[in-house]
């Protein structure tokens, strides 16, 4: 039967007996499939156990405690060579998430810009955007990552000749260096001020809305709110005597030390991911905006709504419905694609865990299983959010 709901409805009928032909057949079919799949699984498992015992390989997660013994070029959380394999796993996850988050942010910004360029009135701008998308979308990401790594970051000057911005920020082929903050006593006051400022901004927005409802007067709550969030903590910070020291990177020996540094592999990976994904996002943005018919803009204009508000009140709310779902799946793709870090040796989960750790420890099964579990969890989590969102934004129709 083709009408799926009805069939199951029928199955739930109280008087239904097991002799129901259709139901019976479907149960038999399902039973056979399940038996096949479990049979196959059992076959695999017994083979694996036999193979492993015969070849003296060990499964199990015991090795997670033993010391890894290799260095990792970039770690977000503290790590030394004597830390355990499990720590390596954590380092990998942290790095993967870091890459994913930055790339997603970058891809969204660039994608938005390119998407708008694609719709520009300027022919040249439009054409550049088009070829930007065509070229980057049609070459493998793996090659692009390598190209960024060698085509750009490896060509930067050596540490001694670093590009220097005000003696605080440095860029060379070892990465990007910037001052790192060291909070002093009393810095908490500034943090508290920040929290207060955020609360104030939220309150301001609420007040602005209420006032507009009551009097019709418009108040630019967002920009004022942002100003408050910046200005208030800054003022408090300065008043409390600027209790924050900066760890400025200095050239010492081979390279800059201190401060915060971003290695070139990370830069290249993030840039490649962001730019590659931005092509897809640009197209998503364009199709989203173009899905809102021109009539909507004209209607808004005929009503006297300013272009900037037309975007905000009419175009965006409608375009977002079309944009968000494919956008999220692009975000998932970024997370998955960050596994290509292996090509330039950035220590993401796949590179540091499924490659280095697997090779050093030889524990293939637990390592591959843990890696896959991580990605599955991330994707499951995102799908849950997505489904909830999709349900919320459905246009009300007849």
């Amino acid at each position: 039967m083709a009408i799926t709901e009805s069939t199951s409805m029928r199955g739930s009928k109280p008087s239904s007996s097991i002799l129901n032909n259709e139901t019976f057949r479907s149960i038999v079919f399902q039973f056979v499939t399940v038996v096949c799949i479990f049979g196959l699984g059992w076959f695999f498992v017994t083979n694996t156990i036999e193979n492993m015992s015969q070849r003296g390989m060990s499964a199990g997660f015991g090795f997670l405690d033993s010391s890894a013994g290799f260095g990792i070029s970039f770690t977000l959380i503290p790590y030394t060579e004597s830390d355990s394999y499990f720590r390596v796993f954590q380092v990998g996850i942290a790095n993967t998430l870091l890459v994913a988050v930055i790339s997603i942010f970058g891809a969204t910004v660039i994608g938005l810009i390119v998407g708008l360029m694609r719709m520009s009135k300027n022919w040249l701008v439009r054409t550049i955007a088009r070829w930007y998308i065509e070229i980057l979308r049609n070459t493998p990401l793996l090659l692009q990552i390598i190209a960024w790594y060698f085509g750009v970051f490896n060509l930067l000057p050596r540490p001694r000749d670093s590009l220097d911005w005000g003696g605080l920020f440095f860029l060379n082929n070892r990465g990007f260096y910037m001052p790192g903050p060291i909070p002093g006593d009393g810095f908490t006051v500034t943090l508290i001020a920040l929290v207060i400022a955020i609360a104030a901004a939220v309150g301001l927005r609420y007040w602005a809305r209420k006032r507009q409802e009551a009097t019709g007067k418009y108040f630019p709550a967002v920009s004022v709110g942002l100003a408050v969030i910046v200005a208030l903590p800054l003022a408090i910070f300065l008043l409390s005597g600027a209790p924050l020291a900066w760890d400025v990177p200095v050239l010492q020996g081979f390279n800059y030390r201190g401060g915060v540094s971003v290695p070139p592999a990370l830069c290249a990976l993030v840039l490649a991911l962001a730019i590659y994904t931005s092509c897809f996002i640009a197209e998503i943005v364009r199709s989203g905006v173009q899905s809102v018919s021109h009539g909507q803009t004209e209607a808004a204009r005929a009503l006297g709504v300013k272009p900037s508000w037309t975007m905000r009140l009419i175009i965006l709310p409608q375009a977002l419905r079309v944009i968000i779902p494919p956008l999220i799946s692009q975000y998932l793709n970024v997370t998955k694609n960050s596994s290509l870090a292996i090509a330039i040796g950035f220590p993401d989960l796949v590179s540091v865990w499924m490659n280095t750790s697997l090779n050093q420890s030889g524990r293939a099964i637990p390592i591959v299983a843990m890696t896959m579990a991580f990605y599955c969890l991330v994707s499951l989590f995102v799908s849950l959010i997505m489904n909830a969102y999709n349900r919320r934004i459905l246009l009300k129709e007849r």
Partner: protein
Amino acid sequence: MSTDTIEKTATRSAKSGQPVIELVGMSKWYGNFQVLKDIDLTVYEGERIVVCGPSGSGKSTMIRCINQLEFHQEGDVIIHGKAYGKDEKQNDLIRRDIGMVFQSFNLFPHLSVLENCTMAQIWVKETPKAEAEAVAMHFLERVRIPEQAHKYPLQLSGGQQQRVAIARALCMNPKIMLFDEPTSALDPEMINEVLEAMIELAQSGMTMIVVTHEMNFARKVADRVIFMDQGEIVEQAPPHAFFDNPQYDRTQLFLSQILHH
């Protein structure tokens, strides 16, 4: 028929000679193709004008120029004595006096009917919300769909949507209303619904330009009927003169086609 004539004369006298819309030698090109040729037209306060003409004759383009949804290249479009110019801010102010109802409604599908009507009031005229809603409900009642206020446009029938579009335009309290073939997408039943709403509106003395081929409507409501062809105004006359005694061969031909249809 006689009450009709009386009423029409009454409103025509209200037309106090104040010109509201003046098109002076306006021309417009799409690329090399001249859509509008030297249009001269003056519309007085309270006048109801019906524009007709064959497809592609430039009717839509003309009324879109009045609203500056399209830009003309030569001549002037003057509304209440002020001409459109380069300054978009200024143009926006001029445009506020003009309401427009599109053939395809162009309602905002993500806003409820009420929000469709209050949105521009709140953001453009900075009306308090409660007041805006009262205005909106007033006009929704006037087009007889107050009970649909909290539905969304896609949940309404075509005729209802068209009425929302009219109410939405009216909420901005425009001095001039432009209608671009407001009934061509509707089925006969709904055409009547919408025309009735428009007739009621017409009786309130608002300046209106209506592009339509509903000749009954023109007869009943119009102060002047304008016939366009190939980007020019061929003929303009009061309805009885226009229908019963057209001056030009082109008009006669057109009328013979449209009335036999």
